[in-house]
């Protein structure tokens, strides 16, 4: 199948390990890369969570003494950067990586080595940013890095920010291109657009958002880098630089970013709810178009982050109106999820609970989001804890709940064993209660005037009680996270072995064994319906009730079948090329030219090796 041009051997011997840690370094299997993404994102989740606990301990009482101002500012900045760029985004990417090919009936993503490259760049980027803690101080200008503060803050923290996010952005961009081509081009025969699972649709929208949002952030970060390190004057008001330029660029990226974070979770919920309601998704087309509409409208609302910046009443009105009306497609989704459950036969599994938890909490985040569109009142609530409450209801009650729903749902497919349902439900309720205890009261103290990003507050402000409650809530969440870890460990050891189709699923991934073989499908499936697997399993009685037509999900996986399947061979080069990134980063932060040259050389070496080796070894 390879062309004649590519039959000769690469200039290095190909890695051959299929087990052991080396196999993970060289893997270009989308499933292994998905697991790498997931594990890494989870580790960052724990780190970002510990930062959050410290923040809450510091604020538990007035005049807190747990952290000083310097460390507090680093912690809240790193908490934001971590949770956004190193947890929610890559956790979504983990699931996309693993399940996009499985759900569209493909054997891998379009560019397996680019996929591996994307992961290693992400990992090295994350390590690069975190190394700043040990090298004189982490970024401390907020995840939003408003200039001119971000260009004047002493130390190297914000230089790490400008380069670290740049590196993470490269990973996202590579991933986005890969997913776009995979989804558009690698679908199994018969998998038309309107038969694609909603998770695939949302992944596609997210990939396009990334594709167009990351370069805008890249420009802003480069400008900040020039300002900090090379005497640039992009954001120096003393010579005419405009601080609002940063805000516009950052939020032109930043608001689509919000949808980048939430849409994968919406996709997951749109898979989980139908499965456990035993019903097709209510209003599939509406949900898909609502998702696409959100993707488009998400570009027209950025300045609602800047209502207090003084853009003037006309601009504020325009952005307030777009902000209001983006609630309409979001509302459509919520109605349709409720419609999906209506008349169903619901199994209250942990995955389902997390999905319903997502819907329930997202309503609150959505409604509080609409209130921001009321500019005169937004002038009151913006930059208070009301905002912190709002976006945690969207990103934790929304995205994180959705992602955990996805983890419980797909865990048996990935690891071949189910997660414990009892511990899972305990996990859910701890999260649900802890979450609301932590973030519910933030609405109240916000409306009572507690600003964001303050490391301390005096005792006479009336915020004491609720801050203490929030801290308790945060620790309840921490216990919930421990329960999840215990559940995962127990599942590895003695979890119930998963059959191919443990939930009576509807989509193609459940037709493969758990875990799926390296080549995913021994025969590329032929898709004839939306929810194709369900239609293969069930016929309909004249009354419209489903009747099982064949017993098992498993295709007998005969070994003879897959001998002819050529899969791309493992490769050293994606990881090698990615290794150049941190060298470039450190070299730039400290202006060490040799380090930059070494970094560029490693990168080029990796890319050339990658370019010259055939992707399949004969």
């Amino acid at each position, binding site marked *: *199948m*390879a*062309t*004649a*041009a*590519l039959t*000769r051997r690469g200039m290095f011997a190909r890695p051959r390990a299929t087990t052991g840690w080396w196999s993970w370094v060289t893997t270009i299997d989308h499933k292994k890369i998905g697991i790498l993404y997931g594990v890494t994102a989870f580790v960052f989740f724990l780190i970002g969570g510990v930062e959050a606990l410290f923040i809450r301990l510091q604020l538990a009482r007035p005049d807190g003494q747990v952290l000083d101002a310097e460390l507090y500012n680093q912690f809240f900045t790193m908490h934001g950067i971590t949770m956004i760029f190193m947890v929610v985004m890559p956790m979504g990417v983990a699931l996309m990586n693993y399940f996009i090919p499985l759900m569209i009936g493909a054997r891998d993503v*379009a*560019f397996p*080595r*680019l996929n591996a*490259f994307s992961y290693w760049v992400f990992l090295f980027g994350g390590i690069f940013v975190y190394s700043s803690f040990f090298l004189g101080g982490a970024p401390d200008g907020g995840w939003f890095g408003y200039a001119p503060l971000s260009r004047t803050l002493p130390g190297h923290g914000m230089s790490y920010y400008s380069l670290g996010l740049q590196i993470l952005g*490269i990973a996202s*961009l*590579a991933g*986005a*291109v*890969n997913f*776009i*081509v995979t989804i*558009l*081009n*690698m*679908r199994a*025969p018969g*998998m038309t657009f309107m038969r694609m699972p909603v998770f695939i649709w949302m992944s596609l929208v997210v990939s396009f958002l990334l*594709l*167009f*949002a*990351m*370069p*805008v952030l*890249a*420009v*802003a970060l*480069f*400008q900040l880098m*020039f*300002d900090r390190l*090379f*005497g*640039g*004057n*992009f954001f*120096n008001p003393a*010579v*005419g*630089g*405009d601080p609002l*330029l940063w805000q516009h660029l950052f939020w*032109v990226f930043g608001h689509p970013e919000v949808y980048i974070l939430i849409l994968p979770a919406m996709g997951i919920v749109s898979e989980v709810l139908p499965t456990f309601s035993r019903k097709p998704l209510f209003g599939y087309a509406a949900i898909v178009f609502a998702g696409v509409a959100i993707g488009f409208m998400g570009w027209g609302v950025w300045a609602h982050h800047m209502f207090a910046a003084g853009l003037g009443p006309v601009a504020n009105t325009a952005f307030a109106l777009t902000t209001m009306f983006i609630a309409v497609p979001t509302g459509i989704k919520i109605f349709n999820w409720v419609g999906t459950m209506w008349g169903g036969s619901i199994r209250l599994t942990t995955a389902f609970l997390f999905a319903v938890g997502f819907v329930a909490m997202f309503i609150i985040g959505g409604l509080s989001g609409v209130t921001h569109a009321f500019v005169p009142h937004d002038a009151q609530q913006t930059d208070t804890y009301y905002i912190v409450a709002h976006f945690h209801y969207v990103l934790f009650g929304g995205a994180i709940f959705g992602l955990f729903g996805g983890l419980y749902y797909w865990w048996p497919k990935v690891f071949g064993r189910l997660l414990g349902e009892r511990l899972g439900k305990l996990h859910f309720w701890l999260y649900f209660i802890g979450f609301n205890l932590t973030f519910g009261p933030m609405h109240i103290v916000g409306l009572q005037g507690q600003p964001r990003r303050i490391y301390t507050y005096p005792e006479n402000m009336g915020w004491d009680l609720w801050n203490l409650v929030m801290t308790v809530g945060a620790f309840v969440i921490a216990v919930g996270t421990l329960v999840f870890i215990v559940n995962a460990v127990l599942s590895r050891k003695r979890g119930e072995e998963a059959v191919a189709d443990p939930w009576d699923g509807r989509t193609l991934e459940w037709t493969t064994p758990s875990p799926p073989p390296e080549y995913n499908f021994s025969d590329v499936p032929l898709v004839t319906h939306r929810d194709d697997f369900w239609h293969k399993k069930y016929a309909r009685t004249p009354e419209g009730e489903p009747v099982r037509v064949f017993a098992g999900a498993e295709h007998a996986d005969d070994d003879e079948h897959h001998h002819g399947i050529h899969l*791309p061979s493992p490769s050293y080069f994606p990881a090698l090329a990615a290794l150049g990134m941190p060298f470039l980063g450190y070299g730039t932060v400290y202006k060490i030219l040799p380090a930059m040259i070494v970094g560029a050389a490693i990168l080029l070496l990796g*890319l*050339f090796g*990658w*370019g*010259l080796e*055939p*992707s*399949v070894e004969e």
Partner: protein
Amino acid sequence: MSTHEVAVEGAVHEEHHTSMGLDNVKMAMWAFLGSECLFFGSMISTYLLYRGRTASGPSPHEIYDIPYTSVSSFVLLMSSLTMVLALAAFQRSDDRQGRIWLLATAFLGVTFIGGQIYEFTTFYEEGLALATSPFGSSFFMLTGFHGAHVTVGILMLLSLYGMSAFGRIEGGRSAARPVEMVGLYWHFVDIVWIVIFMIVYLIPE
């Protein structure tokens, strides 16, 4: 992401059926170029905002040498022509001539970069540096990143030349594909320059 490795990686999938009927690598390249539009668009917006903010430094009309830049723009424009000729040669399996046109394209690119280095040096001597003013910052960032893109393009052209010369890509349609991908990139960078030339140099303040 450079296009070069994508070009080669995608070759394996050549015979695969694709759902859209469009080659994977080509689609990836189009997606990447879409992303690049936003990249350059953001820098052009910054430039438009800052062109008049010259602080104590020189202003655009004091410093631009339009005839000079017109010549180097013409050179880059011509490189698109040689790129087309290179692709055409590879498509009719005339590798030798294809390589010549590749070299010609790279040479024109190098000429353009040389011109840009000279222009930057002159500007610097006339008092415009990255640190001079927001105008200086935005000018050097925009044209500098464009130059970096041209440089990456030259590297890819030379790699193609080397691969073809050492027989790592052979004649016929399979060789034409990586050339076509690099060509897409090259034409894009060229078009971006046309936009930059018009907006930065030609449109008066």
